[in-house]
């Protein structure tokens, strides 16, 4: 137990405490640090750019989290179970591919897909929607949703598989009982599927919300936060503040806020979904 604890203390707990400490100073990383108390936090909560950046991460939750979970639920309730045969193996393998490749690779692939000559525009032109084509990641209005689509692509397969796996554990008797009671597919979904999948949905939400709030790789590769600040997320801003702008204190305060934001989102979900079933 000791070695694990030592590694954890030296490379996680100590930096964590340091982050807290840095966040109370104005420091450029080299010179003498100046005590500023909570000023950095005040900046995080009042600076319009920083607030916008935090807002971007919240918007990404919709794409990284809600869309994959909703679509995953839809597919799961249609498919109910993926067969154990060869077809099932192929399906599972393919749907897991985005989980296995580095996010950087997903970023590169989608930067190409969403570029002016990319596949997305090619398809749009083919169906007669040539008018809406654009460089999706470079456009002021569409950049953030475009980044969101990349995240949705990465996480959709995982959510689908998790939900289908949970689905196959539901007692088929429950569905038969619901049918006998005259429930239609919609009632069935809300009365049987949703409550039974509570835990799986909780897991999906937890994983995807953390992925959205702490996103870095995809944004760094596909847009570097641009155009303007349209797609800058806290992770990227921490990196930029700490290593290019040399505002270590402010970067650390943002890091603490990000950490708390993750906890504030994840803990209630855990409490709601881990509790005993109704």
């Amino acid at each position, binding site marked *: *137990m000791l*070695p*694990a604890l030592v*590694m*954890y203390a*030296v*490379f*996680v*707990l100590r*930096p964590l405490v*340091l*982050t807290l400490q*840095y966040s109370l100073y104005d420091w450029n990383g080299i010179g003498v640090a100046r005590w500023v108390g909570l000023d950095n936090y005040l900046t995080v909560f009042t600076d319009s750019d920083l607030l916008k950046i935090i807002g971007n991460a919240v918007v990404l939750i919709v794409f990284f989290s809600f869309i994959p979970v909703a679509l995953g639920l*839809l597919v799961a309730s*249609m*498919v*109910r179970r993926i067969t154990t045969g060869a077809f099932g*193996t192929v*399906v*599972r*393998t393919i749907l*897991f*591919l*985005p989980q*296995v*490749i*580095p*996010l950087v*690779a*997903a970023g*590169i*692939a989608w930067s*190409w*897909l969403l570029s002016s*000559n*990319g596949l*997305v525009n090619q398809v749009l032109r083919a169906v007669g929607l040539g008018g809406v084509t654009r460089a999706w990641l470079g456009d002021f209005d569409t950049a953030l949703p475009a980044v969101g689509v990349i995240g949705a*692509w990465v996480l*959709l*397969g*995982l959510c689908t598989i*998790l939900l289908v*796996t949970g689905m196959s554990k539901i007692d*088929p008797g429950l569905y038969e009982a619901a049918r006998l009671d005259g429930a239609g*597919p919609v009632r069935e979904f809300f009365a049987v599927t949703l409550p039974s999948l509570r835990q*799986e949905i909780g897991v999906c939400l*937890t*994983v995807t919300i*953390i992925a959205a709030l*702490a996103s870095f790789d995809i944004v*760094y*590769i596909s847009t570097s936060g641009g155009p303007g600040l349209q797609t800058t997320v806290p*992770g990227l801003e*921490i*990196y930029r503040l*700490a*290593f290019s702008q040399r505002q270590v204190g402010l970067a650390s305060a943002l890091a*603490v806020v*990000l*950490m708390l934001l993750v906890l504030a989102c994840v803990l209630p979900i855990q409490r709601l979904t881990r509790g005993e079933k109704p």
Partner: protein
Amino acid sequence: MNLSRREQVTGRVLLIALIVVTLLPFVSMLSAALQPRGSVPDGLAWPSDPQWGNFADAFTAANMGALLRSSLLIVAGVVPVSVLIATMAGFGLGQLRVPGGRLVFGLLLLGLTLPFEAVVTPLYYQMQDLGLLNTRWAIILPLIGLYMPFAVFWMRAHFTNVPVELSEAARVDGSSTWQLFWRVQVPLARPAIASLTILMFLWTWNQFLLAIVLVDDASKRTMAGALGAFQGQWGTDLVLLCAGSLLILTPTLIVFLIFQRQFIKALIQGSVKG
């Protein structure tokens, strides 16, 4: 299970649509990678004269040999040590129930949802002080620490479910704690250890943030970090970029396809427990 015929068909169609969407980015990259160098490729068009040589060019341009070696070294530095010390810690917490265990466990739980961005800045200065910046150690050591919450959590979950009677029986036979650990518990824990190993391998191989912050030289980074550098260098040469990216993906894909059953099991369990 009696799904109506219409539902079954819709389900199938949805699933196939999902598969197509998942695969399209890869196919589109492949089609771009095979175009003649310097051309401006279209989203998806099979080239009349596929230029497989582009992959050879990309192999040289990306310095693939060095990259593979670097990633393997980092994995070799991170994974065995992490798995070993996490297994020991999990054993201590789950089976021996050592005093103070609850406190340690609480501390670890704190780290379970920690975004790496929250500690990367101090880690940079810490590595600077240790003189390890720009070496592979700067990636290896922090990763071991950062993996501990999940890894210990994972192994503890396994050891908690092993009946205590088993340990007691071994003790009656006169084995020491050390023997008990290696002879009895570790062999039993093999499936849990295998899944953990797979996850650690994958996360290390794909680690990006630590690689770009702590190591400047792309040939000393992880695969993901190197890929980032490759994009920075060849971003304007789309054909080469696509070829290189696919090339850099190949080792992971091969390992994934060989162990795909174990991978999927590990990933499913991994996210459920995490």
